[in-house]
């Protein structure tokens, strides 16, 4: 990967950006090492690498994509609550384009007409992907317009699509869960080529976004808008266009996440796809050290943040935490991680343990 370039550029930004997320991830994994037997077992099955660690990467791929888009939005000082709903929209659009026969009549009695041939699709794959991504980018653009031009507070503006989006997704598919049989599409989320296919997508997308933000001045513009929109305006940066861009990219990435998620389970589940994932994505960005008020961001740290979230979930399944304790424990982990690098807490500990100098960095 571009490990070298990444770490180099990140060192330029700030060392602590990466250190703490990696410590957090390491803590979760060390916990697994001690308490879950065989958590790190990796074996080859049917020529593919198979194990819990791979699961974390694979299941985490949707949250990683969301977190990447979310990082840009948060860096401008905003937030996008609608990404989960946009995922549902993109999943519904894609499924409908591949199998529009489901909608032949109003009531689902026509579910029988589902074409279950794995080689059948109504629209060709490239068209499905293109239209789906286009529509999700439009969703992002809509958020961007509301935030940048209508000057609605980001949380409120994106809340609109968060609520309406899932409804739109249900309207698109008429409330039916469309099953996806078209194998090439399913491969996107479900396929393996030594490693799970979604991982390759995530890597490519990450590299492209990194080049886009760090090899051009876009990233710098985004950060400056987040730090101080007014002064960046006076220095010639069009704050509105930058925000519009950030939200559009966020929508586009949410659309990609929706494609991965629906391909992974081979259904367009408008009710459940991406449900509450916007919160995971926001937490991932926060764990990655990007401040909610905006400003400096690190894409790689957000990826690590997303992996922390996913590793926590996967470890809980592996340990066998009782179902009704899962959410609470997830919350506890997040709060512990965030406390780990809250400035106040660090100062607090510094004060308490003043004789020991080693805590302070």
């Amino acid at each position, binding site marked *: 990967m571009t490990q070298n370039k990444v770490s180099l550029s990140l060192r330029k930004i700030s060392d602590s950006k990466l250190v703490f997320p990696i410590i957090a991830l390491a803590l979760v994994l060390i916990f697994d090492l001690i308490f879950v037997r*065989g958590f790190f077992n990796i074996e080859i099955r049917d020529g593919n690498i198979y194990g*819990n660690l791979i699961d974390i990467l694979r299941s985490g791929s949707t949250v990683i994509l969301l977190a990447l888009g979310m990082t840009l939005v948060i860096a401008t000082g905003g937030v996008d609550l609608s990404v989960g709903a946009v995922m549902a929209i993109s999943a519904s659009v894609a499924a409908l384009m591949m199998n529009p026969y489901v909608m032949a009549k109003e009531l689902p009695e026509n579910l029988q007409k589902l074409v279950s041939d794995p080689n059948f699709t109504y629209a060709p794959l490239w068209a499905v992907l293109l239209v789906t991504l286009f529509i999700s980018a439009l969703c992002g653009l809509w958020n961007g317009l509301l935030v940048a031009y209508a000057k609605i507070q980001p949380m409120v503006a994106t809340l609109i699509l968060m609520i309406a989006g899932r409804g739109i997704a249900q309207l698109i598919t008429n409330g*039916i869960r469309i099953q996806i049989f078209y194998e090439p599409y399913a491969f996107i989320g479900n396929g393996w080529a030594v490693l799970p296919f979604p991982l390759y997508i995530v890597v490519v997308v990450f590299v492209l976004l990194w080049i886009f933000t760090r090899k051009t001045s876009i990233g710098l513009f985004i950060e400056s808008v987040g730090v101080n929109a007014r002064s960046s305006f006076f220095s010639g940066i069009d704050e509105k266009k930058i925000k519009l861009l950030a939200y559009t990219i966020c929508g586009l990435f949410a659309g990609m996440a929706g494609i991965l998620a629906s391909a*992974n389970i081979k259904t367009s589940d408008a009710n*459940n*796809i991406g449900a509450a994932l916007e919160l995971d994505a926001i937490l991932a960005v926060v764990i990655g050290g990007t401040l909610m008020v905006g400003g400096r961001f690190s894409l790689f740290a957000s990826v690590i943040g997303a992996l922390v979230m996913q590793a926590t979930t996967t470890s809980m*399944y*592996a*340990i066998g935490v009782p179902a009704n304790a899962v959410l609470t424990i997830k919350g506890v982990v997040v709060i512990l991680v965030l406390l780990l690098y809250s400035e106040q807490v660090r100062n607090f500990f510094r004060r308490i343990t003043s004789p020991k100098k080693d805590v302070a960095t």
Partner: protein
Amino acid sequence: MKLNKLFKVFAVVIVLVMMLAACKPAATEAPAATEAPVATEAPVATEAAKVYTYADMTVGFIQTGSEGGWRAANTASFKETAETLGLTLKFYDAQNKLENQVSAFRNFIADPEVNVIVLAALETTGWDDVLKEAQAAGKVVVIEDRRIDASSDLYATYIGADFALEGQNAGIEMCKLLEGSESKNVVELVGNVGSSAAKDRGTGFRETMGQCGITVTQSQTANWSATEGKDVMAAFLKADPNIQGVFAQNDEMGLGAALAIKEAGLVPGVDIKIITVDGTAGAFKGMIAGDLNTVLECNPLLAPQVYEAALKALNGEKLPAWIPSQEGIFYQADAEAIFPSRTY
């Protein structure tokens, strides 16, 4: 005090008027509806002696609103069955609003044509007043799908699913599937924590699984969703691969689990048996593909049972407070043959 008394008198008058109103259409209907043989008895017969048929029945049905495939099938069932039985159906969609349901209920009480009111309640509580009004007006009330918290004297009967029975049947079916298997380790994919469907299906399963020595080795919520079903199953398989069966509390989670089993290089339906609950089209596709073994139905097609119960109640028969809905068990071998006749 005086006011109170006045009010009581007023109430009695209203009730009397209502009763008269309720009797009137029935009396005029009687000779009209029974033109031929019964006609000779009809003039002398009192109300109780009148035998209602489906043709005399006008049902006011208050649906919750639309929410997905299950509900759509439920509505369609009421409309289609009404047509085939030849009864009159007045359908009201409450758009998921409680106040709409209550006002529709009152409209149906006031409607002289309606003699049966069927309710799929949005809320469990707060129905006592309208139920009393309906009783005073002599309407038969049947509650379907969603149970309500009201004295069972106030309505004819409740018809809905028996989640515990679904769980028990799942246990029995799992026993059949694992017959001859040396170890019988089953993992469970639970629905939303705290929902009655999830709770009762889980307890039901545990009641019957002991008969053949099944143990639930791992159990985790997957929130009715396929994505989580897949993730949870993938983790189960790694934590302890010694798994012979999956009990998924709905179809989606079971289908997700099947995908995870495939990824582990095993064959769902063969190496690991899967039982799910609901009976949606997706589950049938899954059975035809061989991924799912047995599907327990959670039936939305309640109309035939509801209409039958309503007719009995109209004819003065006393019904049990709860009639569990008839639910089928579908097997992999029959899936292909049954599938075309499935409507949801």
